[in-house]
């Protein structure tokens, strides 16, 4: 099912786009599909095994930050990928 992915900061810079839809039903499959769709994110914010790299966070629909790669995703969900360091 399509899940909306929004990229912020360095992932957006590297990807050259700010959002896209990917087919995924949990966080792990989303990261894998995202890596396939935008290979330049692997090694930047994505590990090559379906995980986020340290220093990055995923957020579900702008509310909760999520790390459990088994987190179930539904049609229409948005996953935001952003830097964990929010220092200003």
């Amino acid at each position, binding site marked *: 099912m399509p899940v909306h992915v929004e990229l912020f*900061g360095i992932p957006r810079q590297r990807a050259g786009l700010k959002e896209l839809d990917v087919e995924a039903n949990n966080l792990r499959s989303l990261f894998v599909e995202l890596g396939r769709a935008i290979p330049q994110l692997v090694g930047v914010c994505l590990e090559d095994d379906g995980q986020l790299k340290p220093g990055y966070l995923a957020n579900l629909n702008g509310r909760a930050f999520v790390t459990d790669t088994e987190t179930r995703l539904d049609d229409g969900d948005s996953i935001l990928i952003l830097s*964990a360091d929010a*220092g200003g």
Partner: protein
Amino acid sequence: MPTAPPGYHGRYLRVDLSARSAAVVSIPADVLRRYIGGSGLGTWILLQETADGIDPLSAAAPVLFVFSPLVGSPLTTSAKFAVMGKSPLTERINDSLSSSHFAIAGKKTGYDALLIVGAAEEPTCLVIEPHGASFESAEEAWGKSSRDAASILADRLGKGFRFAAIGPAGENLVRYATVSHDGRHAGRGGMGAVLGSKKLKAVAVRGDRATPYHDLDGLLALSKSLSQKSFGPATAKYRELGTAGNLLAFNRLAVLPTRNFQTSSFDGAAALAPEAMTLTHERTRASCAACTIGCEHIYHRHDNASGVRMEYENLFALGPLCGIDDPEAVLTASALCDELGMDTISAGGTIAFAMECAERGYLDVPTLRFGSGEAVLETLEQIGARRDVGDLLADGSRIAAERIGHDTADFAPHVKGLELPGYEPRALQAMALGFAVGTRGADHNRSGAYEVDFSAEFDRLNAGAEVVEPAIETEDRAVLLDSLILCKFLRGVLVNYHAELAEMLNLVTGFGVTADELRVASRRIVTAKKWYNMKQGWTPSEDVLPARFLAQPLPQDAGPSGGAVLTRERLNELVAAYNLARGWDREGWVPAEQLRELGIE
């Protein structure tokens, strides 16, 4: 005089501007070990040198420039100094850090700190060299920006000096005036006004007194590896986008304070983000002295006026907080704050507050409306000169609200008088706790509790007691960096935080401190700051947020933070839990026994 540990001179210079005299004061080696340097050492000196209940703008009030054991070393980001004293904005302890060659030259004068009391009769430049202090007229620099003042004084004094100077805002006692060198500012809490009250336009430093290192080879090797790591992915965001790279993510999460905290997302954010501004404005990069990260992004305005350093905090405060979506207006307002020598966060926060007052009919200034860039620029000028409504606003939002009356204190955006930085506390509730208990007021550099909110383990919209320990940990970590002093943007590079910092300190000083000793030092310094505040009149009622944050939920249309509520009861519970976790009583009073245990008194 006993020999100081490597990395230190073991003394500070106490200058009396009234008497035009200076005296050397020894610092015991055990104090250096226990308080380290920067904010920590400065707190210890202030505790020795400050009378209880002192008026921060009186001649007797001390202002302090503090260096650290790491200054001048090859460790990246270590060229920092603290400007400290009692804040005229908060009436509480203030430690404002800055980063420039002033730190390196200042330490080479042969002192670990420069303490200044008294007041000059005429505009003065205090000149510190290894042989002591001299007092030069600064008449011709008075009224100038810090940059122009430094240039005028440099022409007169000769080569090799570095100047920390105030602008017109400091001269006019704007309570959030900065002390600046080379475009970098000791920004928060109004230490510039303290210099202004002493007619002290600038402090000039020059010297040749290097301090030895305990293990130079080890230090060089570690510095090299730290510099290499600092080029890595952990700091890419700062290098490529700067701190302004927070803007779009904060807006999407709806934690971006907008129109004086009336809401937390801003329609105009996209135009202000660095991702957009790099397409519309020429941009160059720079870094502080001795820094390999280089987070500074300087944008050039369309009229080819000088470049403007753009960081998240000045962007948020002079942009969304005032409802401004025009990048040129924000850049010009930032440049004006630099020119006048004013803290951008307090300036933006106070103007946003005034805009809301004017829109509600409490302030008769028809031009002050959210979204008006012209109004922001005009009001900044008025504040810097203490002219028209600027005279009221130069005292900050807390005092302005007291004078305006009605219910305006409910939405004056400050804690202890210090205007909030760009983190909406109803939607970042661990940060709300950090703001409430902060010894210098609402501040994101003293508490990094937003890290707790930006975590999968905690609920940023519904914080409970579980956030207290991790919030304390961020505060303790910050105070350690502020005492060593190193840049906070190194955080992501450190894997074994305390152990790595202990190693750096040990290579310089030979102290042989452990990670645990540094943890205790952090607690000691946080507690010593609190003790200072208690001596200056702190009461538990000030560890709170303004009523707006505790009585009004965020609007339902505030995106994913819509409807967020932080009740007074819940914040009070968080503050009580914080106090107890620190070993203080429930209200926050520090027991005498703990002061003794930590060696504070």
